[in-house]
């Protein structure tokens, strides 16, 4: 198949950036979206031009590096699929595809389609961990966890931190990401002890990193390649309100 691409090209953080029109020729339907870009890049290199810079690592949908907004949707048209797992059979021969980086103030563009997502790491650093040493693998029946709680924690832990929720949010908010991390740990006994402090410091960190406020558009849920639900945001809100009764947000970390 042959495609017309409109790709965001930006030399560096200070460059203004623009969409560049490129042709992708002889693309097979079996290629993944990233393999299609690899092919285009080979052509560009042959012509002595600068290849398109894009992020990727695992190429199996688990690392969250492949951050591209394709035709206005983070990770492209297929639901619950990362860019690396998206295949060219989802596109029409002869069509055009717009490829842009995540856009949010907290995610500055480094080059072309690569953005700096370390703001998410700083939200985790603020409190997305447990500080007790749990030792080795515990005996399975020592601390009992209800099956539903384990399942819910597992669902929340599926978040790969790719940042699609931020890219999709009209407010540039990282609430779905933060909520997944808060919920994941709050569901389990090891994480429960620090739950009140955690929800306070992580939401504060989210603001300090320049992310916006959630106003319940639910675009994040629709864009999430791992199917993280907005019910986790409701859970975060509950945790936050509960934390007020413990005065956990008044003390600065």
């Amino acid at each position: 198949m042959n495609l017309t691409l409109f790709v965001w090209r930006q030399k560096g953080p200070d460059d203004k950036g623009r969409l560049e029109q490129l042709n992708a020729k002889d693309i097979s339907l079996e290629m993944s979206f990233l393999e299609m870009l690899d092919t285009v890049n080979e052509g560009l290199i042959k012509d002595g031009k600068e290849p398109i810079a894009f992020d990727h690592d695992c190429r199996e949908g688990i690392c969250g590096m492949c951050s591209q907004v394709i035709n206005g949707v983070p990770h492209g048209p297929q639901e619950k699929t990362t860019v690396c797992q998206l295949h060219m059979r989802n596109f029409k021969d002869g069509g055009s595809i717009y490829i842009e980086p995540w856009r949010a103030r907290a995610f500055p563009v480094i080059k072309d389609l690569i953005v700096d997502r370390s703001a998410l790491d700083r939200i985790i650093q603020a409190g997305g961990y447990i500080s007790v040493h749990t030792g080795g693998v515990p005996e399975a029946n020592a601390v009992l966890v209800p099956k539903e709680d384990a399942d819910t924690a597992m669902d929340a832990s599926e978040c790969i931190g790719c940042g699609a929720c931020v890219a999709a949010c009209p407010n540039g908010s990282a609430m779905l990401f933060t909520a997944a991390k808060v919920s994941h740990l709050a569901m389990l006994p090891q994480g429960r002890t620090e739950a009140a402090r955690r929800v306070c410091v992580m939401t504060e960190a989210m603001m300090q990193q320049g992310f916006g406020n959630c106003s319940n558009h639910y675009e994040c849920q629709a864009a999430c390649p791992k199917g993280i639900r907005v019910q986790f945001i409701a859970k975060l809100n509950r945790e936050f309100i509960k934390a007020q009764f413990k005065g956990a947000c008044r003390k600065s970390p």
Partner: protein
Amino acid sequence: MGFIKNTVGRKVVIAVTGQLMVVFIIFHLPGNYFNPWAMTFPAIGSFIWIVRLALLLSFVLHAFFGIQSELENHKARSGPYAVTKSLSTTFAAKTMIWSGILSGVFIIFHLLNITVSVIDESFQDNYAVAIGYAIGLSAVCLHLYHGIASFFQTMGWNSEKSLPAVTSIGKGMALLLFGGFICIVILNRG
């Protein structure tokens, strides 16, 4: 960082104050039909003033934090996409700030018109005023079309199962309230 400086804390303030105003509006509607008390409030001692103060405080806090978070959200974006495609948001959700401001203007006008009687034109006699009411009510309806359901999510009173029902009931309530109030305007035009 305290409650009202936190992103969630502020949202809770916006949600609770917004919902308080919704509760008032719900009482305000049948009162208009059955009995003129809703127009002037029940004059049970100081009760009327407690309600008025609570509503005034709600209005001010709601507008302040609503506008503040909207400004922050605007800053958090880094320019528009060349192509945008909404997957789940609604027109009502995207225009909250504008429907909110229009509602605020309408409420101030309504109070000057009915409660304080500074504006001495009634929608019964003046077409322009009646149209003003229709626009104002539409803005409130649009605001609540997203707002009522959104309140439950903000308070965390939501689950995977209840979300679709809560969303539909919220939208339905907004439309019902609009229908109820617009009938007063239309019926009294004569």
